[in-house]
């Protein structure tokens, strides 16, 4: 289970944003992930909850995961875009290029993106 590492990476980046904006509280973090990301969303949210338990500025904050579109790039032709939903009948997480039919494609599975952070900032 590497969701704990991923949640830690998200929290570390948001800590820097909190510092930068001199925020007093984090309310919500929105991340986007493709359907083929190497995470289980429920486990990521669970890991986030464990990590923030002792972080005062993150207490009661939520992590929201929005599913984004998957994208493949073909290593044989110049196709870059959404994969064919049927996939590769022989190998999971692999896709046949909808343009040239090649199996030699790459799917981006590290697209987990911190989209936005809702912060409470000091009243001044």
């Amino acid at each position, binding site marked *: *289970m*590497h969701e704990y*590492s*991923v949640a830690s*990476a*998200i929290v*570390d*980046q948001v800590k820097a*944003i909190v510092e930068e*904006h001199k*925020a*007093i*509280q984090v*309310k919500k973090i929105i*991340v986007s992930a493709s359907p083929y990301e*190497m995470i289980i969303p429920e486990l990521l949210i669970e890991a986030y909850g464990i990590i923030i338990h002792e972080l005062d500025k993150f207490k009661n904050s939520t992590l929201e995961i929005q599913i984004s579109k998957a994208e493949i790039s073909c*290593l044989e032709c110049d196709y870059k875009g959404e994969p064919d939903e049927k996939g590769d009948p*022989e*190998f*999971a*997480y*692999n896709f046949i290029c909808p343009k040239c039919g090649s*199996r*030699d494609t*790459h799917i981006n*599975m*590290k*697209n*987990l*993106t*911190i*989209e*936005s*952070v*809702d*912060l*409470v*900032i*000091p*009243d001044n």
Partner: protein
Amino acid sequence: MSPEKKVVVKKHAYQVNDELADKIRESMKSKNKLFFNMMGSIGAGKTLILEQLAAKLSSKYRVFVINGDVATTIDSDRIAKQGATTVQINTGGGCHLSAKLIQNELDKINIDDYDIFIAENVGNLICPAAWDIGAQLNITVVSITEGEYVVKKHPIIFKNAAIAIINKCDLDGLGFNSDVLAEDASKLKSGMKVILTSAKTGQGIDELIKALGIEP
């Protein structure tokens, strides 16, 4: 009531790790060092392969092996006996190495004291695939005793590797079969270098050294 503010971030969750991994890769490359990342399940034979590599390479090269394991220094102790310098990272419950864990160890040594760096990346076929540790080349090791579906069940870690090692081939034909694993690994990624080894007998180790671009 204090005001709220939405900050648009648009940054990859892995960004900090990946930037450090790129820095490690560039630094190694600029110093003409080789850095390999060996991934695979517990019991696939990674440590014995590394013992074989250390024994063959240490007379000519200064080899530094970073062993990642949940606990103990068993692996680093074994490999050190074959002439390599080793360091053990105990991850506790962690299931993979990261660029930061590698950098922490590199900070403790003088990189110029070594020629070849190899990381043994804990022991599973899932988590290490997601974390770039800054290596120039990833190696995935499976043994034929893991069953004929092991490549099909873990395609991502093979997609992320340049070399697939099918190990324990001394047991080929004794209820185990290397053919289907080698075929799956080849079909899954074009250009994949598939090497059949037996770390126990030494089969395939010279071929592996050649595939790594190391002059024997």
